[in-house]
């Protein structure tokens, strides 16, 4: 039966994330955006609150609050600081992926450290200069040795690449076809031969590092293999599907923050003898954003609910990600418009929201990739329904 109310656990962790976001992240957000760098301190505080293992079993150091709770956490954090949020999201996904694909030993070795912040955060190393939306063109290779594997190649766009203590690295172990032959490995940040490149200068998320990684004959043991040889694409897909719920939630959080700023400004700012909130031109923008972001929230929660109940959620996660990212960007754009000239200045946070939201249409699968996934899944479901 349709029911949109939340459990006590969900409400509790949401409230705890909200107060952390308001008290700790929000006051640091503008400065972090301006100076760049990496939010070490905030992340270690997030770890103490359990926010690096929201959907991770308690026995492995997580808070075991589920996927819906995870989504609530991400929305709350992103309202305050998207840069810190993205590091939190990726680290949560690394922990989840190890819980799903790792051996008992790998889980016990790495997951508690990820949750406690002992690795600072985790990172994913999938994209390459020539392999973005199409992972089958990956060129990083892993060769078996007597003791394990040697990995050689270069990666790009690695979130938290400057600081992450543990990476999931994908490399080719055999040649295709397509994505067959790709394998996932766990590589520590201090592995000899692993070199972190200079952070990219980005439009937004300036307080999150995005770096290349060079892997020059990095030797790892047999215990570095995550999941099955040649079948690492499944690991990537799981990380990406779950990651899409995270990115959608991030985008929604930023969008909600933009609408809230615009709402306050509209009530405060007077022109033609009245608060601009009295004008329909302004009301319309806020009303459209409110309706669209509410729809985004429901798409996200549906995907999270499906994942939490171990049902297929690929199509729903793609819809949530596509819709939330695009509508959040629109909401940020409208928020700047409502602020007028002030919205274009760095005196107000909406220009940061606009920059931070934009990437959500690109990473974790571009909008175009989401549409490919959705069209394929919709056609598939249609075919099944038609056949029955």
């Amino acid at each position, binding site marked *: 039966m*349709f029911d*949109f109310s939340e459990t006590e656990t*969900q409400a509790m962790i949401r409230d705890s994330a909200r107060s952390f976001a308001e008290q700790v992240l929000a006051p640091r957000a503008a400065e972090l955006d301006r100076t760049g760098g990496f939010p070490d301190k905030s992340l270690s505080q997030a770890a103490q609150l359990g926010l690096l293992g929201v959907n991770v079993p308690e026995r492995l150091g997580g808070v075991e609050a589920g996927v819906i709770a995870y989504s609530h956490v991400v929305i709350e954090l992103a309202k305050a600081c998207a840069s810190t949020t993205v590091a939190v999201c990726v680290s949560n996904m690394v922990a989840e992926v190890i819980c799903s694909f790792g051996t008992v030993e790998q889980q016990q070795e790495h997951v508690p450290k990820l949750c406690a912040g002992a690795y600072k955060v985790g990172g994913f190393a999938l994209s390459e200069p020539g392999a973005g939306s199409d992972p089958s063109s990956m060129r990083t290779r892993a060769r078996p040795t007597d003791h394990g594997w040697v990995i050689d190649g270069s990666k790009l766009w690695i979130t938290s690449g400057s600081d992450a203590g543990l990476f999931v690295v994908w490399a080719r172990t055999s040649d295709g076809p397509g994505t067959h032959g790709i394998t996932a490995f766990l590589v520590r940040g201090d592995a000899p031969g692993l070199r972190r490149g200079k952070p990219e200068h980005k439009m937004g998320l300036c307080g999150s590092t995005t770096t290349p990684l060079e892997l020059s004959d990095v030797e790892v043991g047999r215990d570095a293999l995550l999941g099955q040889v040649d079948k690492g694409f499944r690991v990537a897909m799981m990380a990406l599907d779950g990651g899409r719920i995270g990115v959608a939630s991030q985008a929604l959080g930023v969008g909600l923050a933009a609408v809230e700023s615009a709402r306050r400004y509209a009530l405060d700012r007077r022109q033609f003898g009245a608060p601009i909130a009295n004008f329909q031109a302004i009301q319309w923008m806020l009303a459209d954003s409110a309706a669209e972001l509410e729809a985004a929230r*429901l798409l996200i929660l549906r995907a999270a609910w499906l994942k939490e109940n171990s049902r297929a959620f690929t199509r729903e996660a793609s819809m949530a990600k596509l819709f939330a990212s695009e509508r959040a960007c629109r909401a940020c754009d409208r928020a700047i418009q409502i602020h007028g000239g002030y919205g274009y200045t760095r005196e107000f946070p909406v220009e940061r929201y606009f920059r931070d939201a934009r990437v959500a249409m690109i990473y974790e699968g571009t909008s175009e990739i989401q549409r490919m996934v959705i069209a394929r899944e*919709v056609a598939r479901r249609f075919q099944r329904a038609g056949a029955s």
Partner: protein
Amino acid sequence: MDFSLTDDEQLLRANVRAFCRAEVAEQAKQWDEDERLPEHILRKVADMGLMGMQVPEQYGGAGVSAVASACVIEELAATDGSLALTVASHNALCTGHIFLAGNEQQRHKYLPELCSGRALGAWGLTEPGSGSDAAGARTTAVRRGERWILNGSKTFITQGSIGKYAVVIASTDPSKKQHGLTAFVLERGMPGFSVGKKIEKLGMRASDTVELVFEDVEVPLENQLGEQNRGFVDTLQILDRGRIGIAALACGLGRGAMDASIAYARERKQFGQPLAAFQAIQWKIANMATELDAAWLLTVCAAALRDQSKPFTFEAAKAKLYSAQAAMRACNEAVQIHGGYGYTREFPLERALRDAKLCEIGEGTNEIQRLVLSRAISQRFSRA
């Protein structure tokens, strides 16, 4: 949290779908051209329990949830907008108002007939000079002894000529504007109560829309529905509920158009491959599917809140606003995917597009929904 339908809701939905396939799909084009629904179809719909969906069984209704009702409307609309509109308005407006505001005697008198489909119900609020602004209602009801005397006219009245009963909102105290409105139940055949002009429309042509005229209509006191001068308060609740129905209707129109487009895109070949192989077409379908899912979730969210007796005014406005827009885009893209064929009456897409436009206007225009939502500007916008 739960995003699934109950077994009963799924069964109801499957029954309506089977009915639509068997008895509606082939006929809807003809009904659109005839500008009327055949009686036997309305009887069948009533026999399925769809004419008093949310009315408790003690009054002859089916007693199902708001979510289940939304499923029914969505499913009907996926095949025929006019039939869906007839069912939605009969349920939410006339029948809904009598159940909401009626006393026990009135409920027992009218509801069994309405729920069984033996009588259809109309609801009259809109007037030539008073659409979105209900405060401008000029139809008056003046007390004369043991009678109310109604004078004036209403327009855009769904089921106005085929309905046996009409709930009519009239001003009992013009000085109080909307706070001087009262609702009455009128019955066909009352002297002075007549059907005016039939309204010719862009879409929803098989749904009956007419003007109603009141010339010194004598209405017994016991036909007053709800408290005197409280008509507007009840009306707002009726409109809130009705918006869930129109939102569901929009979702169904869009989904029907999308399903047809997917089927067509797989069949139709150009440049040596099915249309479905081109990204230009895939993109349209992905956008439709995503927007319609978003619309549907907003709709069931409002319905579920209603089922739990929680406030849902803002949610219903969001659902209605967004679903109507999503349906227009989906139907428009469906015509586009079908190309020249989509523009012909041979395919149901042009009808869906014409029908969908109603959803941006009826039960409060898009602009009125935004006005409702803007009231939340000084409050909190969303629970997220």
